[in-house]
């Protein structure tokens, strides 16, 4: 009966296409909105993306997110390094400092530190060379700012991008561009600067550090290491996941993401409404055929399987198309400032939502079909 069920599903082309489109739209709405949502969240803990190798992060216990950081004395770095089974630990700077170009552009820049000795924090690829970073006042600037935000404007209105060697002023201190790197933008359209920790001390006039990033020895027990770090109440040691969650949770308090969450929920409701309604209407259109199957000896279990199969087919096709469209969208905006993150867990999430919608729309229809009396075949002419 499964094959017959499939033919009954695709037999009405218009309804079938409408159903697939409805389900595709639902999955597209849910997965695309979720990908934007996750993209936004991931930007809140961008520092752990830039510094991807550490598995331990140490912060001041009052630090919550990028906008609520309490700096720590540099001595704490020695404390972390002294903990057994720590392979390495480096200071991590994250500061917001005023930046001015020679053409008069003024912005507040996000400044990230690079460890002088290990170069941990250095962008993976950039235009320029590492040696240049050791020159006094040398910085790497993000390509988007160099081309747009901080670009000079010529008399004819054309933008002249900043180049390696151009001078800039950071927090009133003269600096120069030693490299240009691609970087994921943050929440605000601010320039992103990378500089050696020693250079940042020069620009900020402070030796304090915002985070300490550390790596455990290969066989080191991270839980045990964190326990030892946290025996000092002045610092808080976290795993990479705990660190990301702490920052993301702080960001969630703003309400922006709750609104996004609501739009994801809305996507689910709209998707269910469209797909559910078309599926239900299609079942109602086919009601006399289900009555016929009952009259020919078909039981409820058989009809249940038929309708569930139809819902699953629609669900799978809609899920594949919706997910593919979302991934295409992600690919299309890859090199823009728009946010997009599509981890494997999102596939599972949208898959689960698709399964829930399928089950609900199947049950709505099954309820209707179970109620139908084959006697309608005798009265309908």
């Amino acid at each position, binding site marked *: *009966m499964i*094959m*017959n069920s499939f*033919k*009954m599903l*695709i*037999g*009405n082309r218009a309804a079938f296409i409408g159903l697939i489109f409805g389900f595709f739209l639902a999955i597209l709405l849910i997965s695309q909105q979720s990908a934007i949502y996750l993209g936004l969240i991931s930007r809140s803990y961008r520092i752990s993306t830039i510094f991807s190798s550490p598995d331990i992060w140490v912060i001041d216990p009052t630090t919550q997110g990028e906008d609520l950081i309490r700096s720590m004395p540099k001595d704490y770095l020695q404390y972390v390094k002294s903990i057994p089974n720590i392979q390495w630990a480096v200071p991590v700077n994250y500061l917001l400092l005023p930046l001015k170009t020679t053409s008069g552009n003024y912005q507040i820049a996000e400044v990230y530190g690079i460890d002088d000795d290990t170069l941990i924090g250095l962008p993976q690829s950039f235009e320029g060379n590492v040696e240049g970073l050791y020159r006094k006042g040398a910085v790497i600037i993000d390509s988007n700012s160099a081309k747009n935000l901080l670009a000079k404007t010529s008399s004819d209105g054309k933008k002249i991008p900043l180049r390696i060697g151009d001078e800039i002023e950071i927090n009133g201190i003269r600096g120069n561009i030693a490299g240009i790197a691609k970087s994921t933008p943050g929440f605000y359209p601010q320039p992103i600067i990378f500089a050696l920790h020693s250079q940042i001390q020069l620009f900020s006039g402070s030796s304090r550090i915002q985070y300490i990033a550390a790596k455990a020895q290969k066989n080191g027990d991270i839980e045990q290491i964190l326990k030892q770090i946290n025996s000092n109440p002045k610092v808080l040691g976290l795993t990479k996941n705990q660190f990301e969650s702490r920052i993301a949770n702080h960001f969630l308090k703003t309400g922006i993401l709750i609104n996004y969450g609501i739009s994801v929920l809305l996507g689910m409701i709209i998707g269910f409404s469209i797909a559910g309604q078309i599926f239900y209407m299609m079942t109602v259109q086919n009601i*006399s*055929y289900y009555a*016929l*199957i*009952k*009259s*020919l*000896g*078909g*039981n409820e279990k*058989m009809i249940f399987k038929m309708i569930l199969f139809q819902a699953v087919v629609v669900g799978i096709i809609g899920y594949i198309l919706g997910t593919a469209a979302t991934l295409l969208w992600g690919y299309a905006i890859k090199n823009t400032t728009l946010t997009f993150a599509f981890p494997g867990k999102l596939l599972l999430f949208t898959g689960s939502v698709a399964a829930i919608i399928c089950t609900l729309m199947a049950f709505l229809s099954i309820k209707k079909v179970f109620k139908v*009396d*084959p*006697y309608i*075949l*005798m*009265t*309908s*002419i």
Partner: protein
Amino acid sequence: MIAIQCKEIKKSFCAGESKVEALKGIDLQIFEKKLTLLVGPSGSGKTTLLSIIETILTPDEGDLFILGHHVNKMNELEKARFRNQNLGIVFQTLHLIPTLTVLENVTLPLIIKGEEKSSAEKKGISLLKQLHISKKMNFPHTELSRGEQQRAAIARALINDPPIILCDEPTSALDQENGITFMTLLHELALSKGRTVFVITHDHRIFSFADHIIHINDGLIEKKNV
């Protein structure tokens, strides 16, 4: 031998606030291997009685015995299985599924029974050959003439080799020639194989095919002609 026996069958329907008594106590016997016609004017209760015999409508009162089985005592699942194995039904509007081919429509009772597709198709093709519509077995029924559709509906009723065939106004939409052809075919395929055929009709043209004619009027059996 009695194939179908109705004892004091009563059935009423609600029409708004009033109650309409469709069957007021039907006592009826339909004999094995005979073609019995149930005739009567519109609204006499023909379709209601046929629906009860088809076990798709439950009477309010009375007892129904088919092939010795007390159908009233069966639950819905047992009735469904009983219908599948013992009753071949030809509906007035045929009720062929348009998204399925003729062959798929014909083999539906076998597939519902749980028979393998290949075996069901083999039986279906053989039957369609006997009915001279095997050339159109892979077409949807909408591409068949009314007479061909009728033959497909008979094939579906016969495919499970049921001992009883029930038909609802089978010739009402057919002209004289096709009506006679249909009844000849029914006679040939059903009665010659020892099946019991029960037909409700008000088509006088086919009365000559009947072994028994039962007249129903206003929910009661009026007379029986043998």
